[in-house]
């Protein structure tokens, strides 16, 4: 069930070409970021942790979850942490510091000592988008990636009464004026930014964006036909599609999704790749300037844990994908969000999108 996260499956240059093609201004950003990429890439990623890791950790590690108990990020943490605990000499203490669209807990980590003893889980592009919309004093762009452990792709679903046949049919119905409203999670969040990107990059011309308090309520509103179509996570849309209330319109990640393996993706149809925003890259992060050695120790253990039978079985049972990615990939997801989103979306407009 689980996929292995590799650089082949997530070709950054290819993705940047797509996104950059949409805006000339974007190209300058990319040139700069490729330089950064090469510079950092050498120091990271081998992660066998033998070097300076011998004396780390000597103390308990604080693992901040910037979301409430029982949410997606918390669920992953509570499944993985006991296994990480077993493989380390110290305890990993989960601390839920929820609120402010994950900025409270993330800020707590950003201001902590960069010694490897305080790490946090967050999911780009979601937390970076929250920070871009409501800028904070900390510099999230410079966060140190430990590793990533999963990704959650987004899809578009529509009420099945409309018999929508794929992304292009959906777009033409909005063009014709047959459909007007489009929805997803709250305004100013990832879904809203994604919808604006699709408008700018794909010419998907929806009229009004209607925001809901989470994927569940957005899917429910689509089933009850309050809105004709919405953005949802693949797992969040699964039950509605299975029951026949919803049709899956398109996958927004170029690789497709495990839940709907047969559905055509936007890139299959030749539209711009938006992978940097159309999946939550669940990662673990440390404060800026944390030395690499302690993080390698943690990353190695997480990698080992993601490959255990226990995690794979849990993944099969729950549909929650578990896949390891390096710290560099985790950092890249944050940087991509900060580089590509402002190039293609007017953040000021989102801030003012009160009505």
């Amino acid at each position: 069930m689980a996929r292995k996260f590799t650089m082949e499956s997530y070709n950054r240059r290819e993705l940047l070409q797509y996104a950059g093609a949409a805006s000339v201004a974007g190209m300058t950003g990319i040139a700069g970021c490729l330089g950064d990429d090469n510079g950092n890439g050498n120091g990271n990623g081998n992660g066998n942790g033998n070097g300076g890791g011998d004396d780390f950790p000597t103390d308990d590690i604080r693992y901040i979850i910037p979301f409430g108990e029982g949410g997606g990020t918390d669920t992953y943490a509570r499944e993985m942490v006991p296994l990480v605990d077993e493989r380390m000499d110290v305890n990993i203490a989960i601390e839920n510091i929820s609120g402010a669209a994950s900025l409270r807990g993330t800020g707590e980590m950003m201001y902590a000592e960069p010694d490897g003893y305080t790490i946090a889980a967050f999911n780009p592009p979601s937390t970076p988008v929250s920070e871009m919309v409501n800028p904070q004093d900390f510099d999230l762009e410079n966060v140190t990636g430990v590793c990533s452990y999963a990704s959650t792709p987004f899809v578009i679903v529509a009420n099945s009464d409309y018999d929508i046949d794929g992304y292009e049919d959906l777009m033409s119905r909005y063009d014709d004026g047959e459909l007007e409203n489009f929805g997803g999670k709250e305004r100013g969040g990832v879904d809203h930014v994604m919808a604006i990107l699709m408008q700018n990059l794909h010419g998907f011309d929806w009229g009004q964006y209607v925001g809901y308090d989470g994927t569940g309520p957005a899917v429910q509103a689509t089933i009850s036909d309050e809105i004709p179509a919405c953005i949802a996570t693949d797992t969040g849309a699964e039950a509605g599609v299975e029951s026949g209330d919803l049709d899956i319109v398109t996958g927004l990640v170029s690789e497709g999704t495990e839940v709907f393996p047969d559905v055509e993706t936007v890139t299959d149809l030749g539209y711009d790749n938006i992978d940097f925003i159309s999946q939550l890259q669940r990662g673990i992060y440390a404060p800026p300037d944390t030395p690499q050695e302690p993080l390698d120790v943690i990353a190695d253990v997480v990698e080992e844990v993601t490959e255990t039978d226990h995690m794979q079985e849990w993944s099969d049972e729950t549909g929650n994908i578990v896949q390891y990615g390096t710290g560099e990939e985790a950092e890249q997801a944050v940087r991509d969000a900060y580089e590509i989103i402002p190039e293609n979306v007017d953040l000021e407009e989102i801030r003012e999108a009160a009505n």
Partner: protein
Amino acid sequence: MSTTQVLAEAAQVLFSWPTIGWVVLGILLGIIAGALPGVGSSMGMAIVLPLTLPLSPVNAIVLLVSMYSGAMYGGSIAAILVNVPGTGGAAATTLDGYPMSKQGKAVQALAMSATASATAGFLAVLTLLLFSPILIEVVLMFGSPEFFLMAAFGLAMITVVVQGSIVKGLVAGAFGLMLTTIGIAPNSPELRYTFDSLALYDGLDFIAALIGMFAIAEMIKLAAKKGGIADTGVDMSGNRLSGVRKTFSHPITVVKSGYMGMLIGAIPGAGATVSNFFAYGEAMRASDDPETFGKGNPLGVISAEASNNGTIGGSLIPTLAFGIPGSGSTAVLLGGLLMHGLRPGPDLFDAELMTTYTFLLALLIGNVFILLAGVFLITRAGRITQIDTHVLIPAIIVLSVVGGYSLRTNWADVATVLVLGILGYIMVKKDYSIIAFVLGVVLGPIAEENLMRSLQLSDGSYMIFLTRPISLLIVILIFVVIFGPFLKPWLSKQLG
């Protein structure tokens, strides 16, 4: 999976350990909280709520609803023994319960109260269970405009539930409503009154507000009293079996009062505090010798106690279906559902149906424990009302502060608990309605979010609230609630 299969599976969960243990613990804690005048169900549940964080959602909700149910019965203990209702819902019980005590029939009255509470509670929840498939159909007809209007209806109910000065009630409600404007706006990333503090980004936690209003305010009030909560000694005499028999010999009163409680409970804002007087009044009206009411007529105890436990089944309808609580206790229960990731609405009757059935069954079975506790532990019940305030007050204040902090590990919540506790005390002293405040603070975000979304859907047109049949109906209801008192005299003048 069919509904019956889900029900069978829910029963299996309920009767497995430790879930069934949480039912028993919840009922006992509820009885104790209910029997302590000044504590009662809302406060008891508000204090326990944050402590349920480590529990699984099912066990946490089972514990909370069992407390709710236990407290409804527990309220009658203090009402009967010391003439002080433990909860607002037992106020009418004092009218005949205490005279029975004075006549040496305390045990008989307590046994009657337990039997009537358990029977009516059982019937109302059973009815809710049977009608839940229909309820879901109704819920699915509700969209954003209807949710806004339901919240507005709940706010309009402030004018009905407030006793005394309407202006003070509206001020209390508006205060609650205004507190909900703190934090990120629900439909846009706009920050309001956060003073650049991340701790205020999500606004005040309404559970913290409830803990402050219910627990701290009451404890400050209690601190002004000397000695035990009830100073009078209690006389435990009377025959328990005759109490049980007496209740069953009046099945019509039990059933009628129970369903009246259920109906009134289903109206947002009107809880057991209203229903027990309605049922008492109706029992008196239907009686051959209404003059014996207030002098120890068993029917007075039976009707009041049947109605308040009947309220539970009813008050769960708007809470589970729309996230609109009918009372302080259901407001706390709503907080519990949200805290454990259970979202009121269609989900509770679809993806989470098993959880919903498990706690409805827990309520059903809880009534059996109420009956058992009421009949067998009754002789010890008097001791609860004698607990010294020197023990009670510090314990509850510590639990409230710890609970406030553990909600979101946010010191803003502790400040909310303490500041609103003090404000709540002043409000009680000056007759500002606490329930009006609760309606404001709980319904504010629901009203705002759905109002803004409705206007997004209609592209800014307010006609969206009138062009759909259900919304139009609710608009008319709101109109009747607000203008009814003015229209009634005018109408009768026209007709008469």
